[in-house]
C-alpha cells in the first residue's frame, strides 16, 4: 500500500492516492494557493479505468514505486506538495531545512519533516537585508536555516538598538502566526542567511490537512517562544546586574527579593543539567 505510514496524516487527501487512481502512479499534484486566499478543494478524482491485463515488468528491487521508501526525504510525496504562486517550497532534500527544523523540533519524524517542508518556503538574505521592520504589518514567521539575524528595537530617540542575535533553528516573528497585527521590533540579517517562511495561511492549511503535524509544530513553537521569554529575562537581569537597589543594599544576593535573579539562577541550573 502506497504511503501506508503517512496515510494517518493525510485524511483528506486520499482521493489523490495511488489507490484512488486505480493503482497508477500519477504525477505530483500541485495546489496553487495565492496568499490570503483560502484553498479551493481539489478537483474530483478521475474515474478509475478498468485494469487492462498487460504484463508488467517486474519491479526493480531498488526502486519500488508501489511501496515508497519509508524515509520520506528520499521521495516527493505526491499529495503533500502545496505551492504558493511565485514561490518554491523549501524542498525535501534541503539539508539546511532538515537541520533547522530538527533543532526546532528535536523529535520530528521524517514524515512530519516532509509535510512541514511542503508549507515552508526558502528565502536567501544578504547581509543587512531586513526580514521585517518594527511596527510593520505581520505577514509570516521565519525559521532561520543558516546565518545570523539581529533583533532591533527603536530607542527613545527612534534609533534602532540591537538587543539580541538569532541563530539557526530559531523561529522569528511568530507573532505573525497568532493574530498580532504588527511586529514590535525589527529583524535584520547580520550575515548572509537562509530563512524559511511560514505564513498563517499555510499554518491553517497544515492544521486542516495534517492536524497531528500541526500540533507537533505548535507545541515546538510554544516551547521555543517560552525559551525566548526566559532568555529575555536573563538579558534584563544582566543589564540590571550592576544597578543599585532602591533600598541601597546589594541587589544581586537574596534570590527571593530579586525574582529575576532567581529566574536566572534557575536557568543556569537548567543549562548546567
Amino acid at each position, binding site marked *: 500500500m502506497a504511503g501506508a505510514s503517512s496515510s494517518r496524516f493525510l485524511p483528506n487527501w486520499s482521493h489523490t492516492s495511488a489507490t484512488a487512481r486505480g493503482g497508477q502512479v500519477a504525477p505530483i499534484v500541485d495546489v496553487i494557493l495565492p496568499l490570503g486566499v483560502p484553498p479551493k478543494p481539489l478537483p474530483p478524482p478521475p474515474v478509475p479505468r478498468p485494469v487492462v491485463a498487460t504484463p508488467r515488468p517486474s519491479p526493480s528491487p531498488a526502486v519500488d514505486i508501489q511501496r515508497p521508501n519509508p524515509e520520506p526525504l528520499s521521495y516527493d510525496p505526491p499529495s503533500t506538495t502545496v505551492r504558493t504562486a511565485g514561490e518554491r517550497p523549501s524542498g525535501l532534500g534541503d539539508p539546511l531545512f532538515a537541520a533547522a527544523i530538527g533543532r526546532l523540533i528535536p523529535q520530528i519524524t521524517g514524515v512530519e519533516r516532509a509535510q512541514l517542508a511542503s508549507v515552508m518556503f526558502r528565502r536567501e538574505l544578504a547581509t543587512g537585508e531586513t526580514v521585517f521592520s518594527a511596527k510593520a504589518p505581520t505577514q509570516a514567521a521565519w525559521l532561520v536555516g543558516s546565518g545570523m539575524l539581529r533583533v532591533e528595537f527603536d530607542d527613545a530617540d527612534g534609533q534602532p538598538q540591537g538587543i539580541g542575535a538569532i541563530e539557526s533553528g530559531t523561529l522569528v516573528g511568530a507573532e505573525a502566526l497568532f493574530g498580532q497585527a504588527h511586529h514590535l521590533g525589527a529583524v535584520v540579517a547580520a550575515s548572509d542567511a537562509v530563512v524559511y517562511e511560514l505564513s498563517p495561511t499555510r499554518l491553517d492549511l497544515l492544521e486542516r490537512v495534517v492536524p497531528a503535524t500541526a500540533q507537533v509544530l*505548535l507545541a515546538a513553537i*510554544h516551547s521555543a517562544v517560552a525559551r525566548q521569554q526566559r532568555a*529575555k529575562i536573563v538579558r*534584563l537581569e544582566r543589564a540590571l546586574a550592576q544597578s*543599585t*537597589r532602591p533600598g541601597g543594599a546589594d541587589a544581586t544576593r537574596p534570590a527571593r527579593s530579586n*525574582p529575576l535573579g532567581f529566574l536566572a539562577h534557575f536557568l543556569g541550573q537548567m543549562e548546567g543539567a
Partner: protein
Amino acid sequence: MSTASLNSLPAWSDIAVEEVRSFRRIAFDRQFRSGTVLARAGMATAGAWLLVGGEVELILETRQCGMVIDRLTPGTWINSGCLVDGGPATFTAVAIGEVQAWLLTADGYRHMASQPGALARRALRQLIQASVHDAAQLSGVVARVQELTTRLNRPLDAEDLFRLGFSRLVLGPPVGTVGRPAPGSGA
C-alpha cells in the same frame, strides 16, 4: 463572584461539549478576591492561569520594584511559558477586582499536548499568543534598559529605574485562592 464560563470567551465560544469536558479533566477553576496575588515572579507556580472573569495586572518585578506591563482581560493566559519547563513564574499577577481563572497544571499541559486533538491545538495557539505577547513586552523593557545604560554609561540607580517606568512594589495579600466557585458557575 463572577460566573463567567469558559465558552463565554470569544476564542472559546465555538468549543464543543467534549472539549469542555476534556479541559475540565486537566484544569481547575478558582476564584480570587481583589488584590490577591495569583502568581509571584521568581517563585514556583502550579501552572498557567486562563483568565475567565475579571482583570489581572501583569507586573515585571525586579529589585523590590515593579512595572505593570499589561492589564489582562478575560481570555488571556498568565505565565503561559512556565508550562514548558516547569520553572518559576515569569511575572507577578495581581487580581484587580474579583477574578475567576482556570489553572492548567504542567502535568495537565503535558497530557493535553501528547494527545492530538482540537482542544490541544486551540489551547496551544492561545498559549503561544500569550507567550509571544509577553516576550514582546519584555523586549521593549530590555531595549529601554540597555539604551539608558548605554547613554548614561554607568549602572542604573533607583531614580533611573523609576524613570524607566518601575515603581516601588508593595504586595499585601499572600498568594492563595478564595475557593472554588459554586457548582454550575464554571464552564
